[in-house]
């Protein structure tokens, strides 16, 4: 009997992955759970384990190739000499995902040749894209461009508009992008400052096996509306989330997303089943504020890649950055995400963060929800996570050693597992 190994889909936004290496040669015996493949997805390099014990019988996709999720990558047979027809097996098991459908998530802005996409007024927009944007009432400068040199094409505007039609209204003139996956009790994911729900790409599949996962892109992030006159403070963002919920939810927030989660739990405790805070803060320290300030400036004056390079040392541990390949891939992943949080949104969210900082210090004691706090051992930006846990009655604290602020990216399995265990206990 043969077992198929296909390109996984590690998150709602993952459409394709690159085969980085096949650590075992064809013909090698592998145990179930042994690493047989390393792939690179949008965010990181991922080790793929053998789904069954046997012999790595046939490899369909060589190292270095990028293929859509669902593409058959290899076959594992129980024995080395049992009959096996590679082509027939492919016909049955090769199920590549169709390229970006109109209703699918927006792929990250392509960065041809590793260059950068600058989201400034000069971002080129093709005439066809401009005309379509005018007809659909879309602001072309907000659309991520995938054409040569980051040019916004007609297809980009179409995809943007199609996704916009799926937005969820939460307030007067404000609708949010809320990609969902799975079924069950709702789990709301709130991303940190300057990022979007793709930061949870590695946790979403784990959670979606049991729950209905709703990733929330806050105001001004991704496709979500970015009204000029509106408020972007933490309380307003918490109200946005409350407006999304039609039944009590498990709420998971990272960093600024944790602040929104705390605010939501204080104002609408009845809307929550549980609370998970990843690298939270209640009072932003001087270093965090300085980094946020630099982030806002660089984003408005330099390229997405410059933003990514600035953030790497603040967000990731020394051990993580020591691997040069991983560092470069992570920089590219961050650079692809950066355009989804344009400079004006960063500035507004930073102001909201400053205003909220310190305002809820004494209120944590009022929280009566089952709470998990995930802290990172090497976190430079929010080092007081354990104190937050200590201030919340009954909160459990899970520390991930040797990881930094972007712990959900750096230690995705540990974070996913911790959340899953916490939610399952409810």
């Amino acid at each position, binding site marked *: 009997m043969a077992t198929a190994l296909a390109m996984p889909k590690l998150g709602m936004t993952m459409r394709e992955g690159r085969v980085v290496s096949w650590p075992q040669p064809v013909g090698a015996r592998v145990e179930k759970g042994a690493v047989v493949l390393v792939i690179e997805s949008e965010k990181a390099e991922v080790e793929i384990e053998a789904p069954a014990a046997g012999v790595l019988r046939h490899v369909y996709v060589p190292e270095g190739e990028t293929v859509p999720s669902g593409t058959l990558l290899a076959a594992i047979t129980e024995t080395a000499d049992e009959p096996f027809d590679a082509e027939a097996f492919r016909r049955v098991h090769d199920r590549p995902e169709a390229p970006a459908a109109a209703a699918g998530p927006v792929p990250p802005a392509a960065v041809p040749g590793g260059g950068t996409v600058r989201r400034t007024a000069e971002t080129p927009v*093709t*005439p*066809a*894209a401009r005309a379509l944007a005018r007809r659909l009432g879309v602001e072309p400068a907000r659309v991520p461009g995938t*054409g*040569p*040199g980051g040019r916004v*094409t*007609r297809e980009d505007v179409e995809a943007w508009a199609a996704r916009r039609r799926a937005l969820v209204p939460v307030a007067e003139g404000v609708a949010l992008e809320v990609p969902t996956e799975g079924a069950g009790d709702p789990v709301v994911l709130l991303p940190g400052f300057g990022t979007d729900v793709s930061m949870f790409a590695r946790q979403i599949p784990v959670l979606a096996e049991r729950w209905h996962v709703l990733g929330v892109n806050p105001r001004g992030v991704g496709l979500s509306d970015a009204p000029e006159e509106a408020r972007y403070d933490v309380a307003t963002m918490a109200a946005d989330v409350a407006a999304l919920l039609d039944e009590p939810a498990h709420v998971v927030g990272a960093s600024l997303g944790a602040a929104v989660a705390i605010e939501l739990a204080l104002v609408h405790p009845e809307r929550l089943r549980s609370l998970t805070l990843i690298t939270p803060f209640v009072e932003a320290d001087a270093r965090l504020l300085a980094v946020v300030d630099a982030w806002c400036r660089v984003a408005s004056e330099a390229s997405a890649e410059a933003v990514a390079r600035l953030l790497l040392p603040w967000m990731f541990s020394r051990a993580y950055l020591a691997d040069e390949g991983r560092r470069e891939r992570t920089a590219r992943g961050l650079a692809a995400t950066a355009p989804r949080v344009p400079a004006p949104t960063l500035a507004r969210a930073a102001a909201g963060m400053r205003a909220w900082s310190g305002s809820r210090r004494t209120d944590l004691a009022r929280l009566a929800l089952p709470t998990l706090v995930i802290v990172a051992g090497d976190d430079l930006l929010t080092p007081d996570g354990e104190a937050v846990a200590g201030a919340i009655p009954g909160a459990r604290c899970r520390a991930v050693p040797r990881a930094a602020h972007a712990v959900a990216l750096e230690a995705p399995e540990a974070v996913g597992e911790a959340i899953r265990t916490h939610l399952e206990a409810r």
Partner: protein
Amino acid sequence: MERDIPMLFAINEALHLAMEADPDVIVLGEDVAGGGGRKDQGIEEAWGGIMGATRGLLKRFGPERVRDTPISEMGFMGAAVGAALTGLRPVAELMFIDFIGVCLDPLLNQAAKLRYMFGGKARVPLTVRTSTGAGLRSAAQHSQSLYWMTAGIPGLKTVIPSNPADAKGLLLAAIRDDDPVVFCEPKALMFVSGPVAEGDYTVPLGKAALVREGTDVSLVGFGRTVQTALRAAELLARDGVSADVLDLRSLQPLDEEAILATLGKTGRVVVVDEAPPRCGIASDVAALCVDKGFDLLNAPVRKVTAPHAPVPFSPVLEDAYVPTPEAVVAAARALLG
């Protein structure tokens, strides 16, 4: 019934059909009879022009209607324009379009202007058959693609087929048209076969043909470059890029509607032209796309042309001179990112 025959035979067939159907159709030019008809010397039939396109006409229609002329383009072109004015439908063979310099006045100042200057009372139903383009190692003076010149003269029509079937239908339409038409015969395609229907039919002047359907990028060609574009489309298909291929067929009148239709469909246009880049059909099509199709453009318009240089004699250089499928693929890729 269809058979596979080369473009040369398709042209020969069209001439036979036109002369059969209309006694006013005559053929003249250098060597169109090719010294044939000299029964006293035992020669009944001969070459029929440099390629053999008029072979068999002399025997079938006689020396009155199939006339060899001296090597004087100015002489026979003037005679052809005069014959057309008197009501005949002459088909003059200008051996190579490169020679148009020595007979431009009858075309530029007579054929193209008379209907206009006589308020429609005069007609010049003249067809000029002429070979164009590189590909036969014929060097700088016998390989040019000067169709842009006749296409730019108001009063002249210019057509160029990309396959034998269109060659036959376009030539019959050209001969039956009441205005002067320059019929370009791409040298490189003359011996390439394709399916051609038997019997009489015409291909309308001024109508382009969509010869391959795609969605991602439009490749626009004419004459030989249609084959280049089709090959490029095959290469692109291997990478999952689907290309529309438009064959202009007529350079004047130009089927603007068809160009804008394919642009509207894909938003991306690559024009492939065997002529040098300046003042050419490729520039013309690009200008049309920007002028009338600006809001349809999803990328810049790319031209793939010969360089601004004479056609080289060296086979290696000649092959490098003409647009290649690989160059078209590269241009399309650059538009798609």
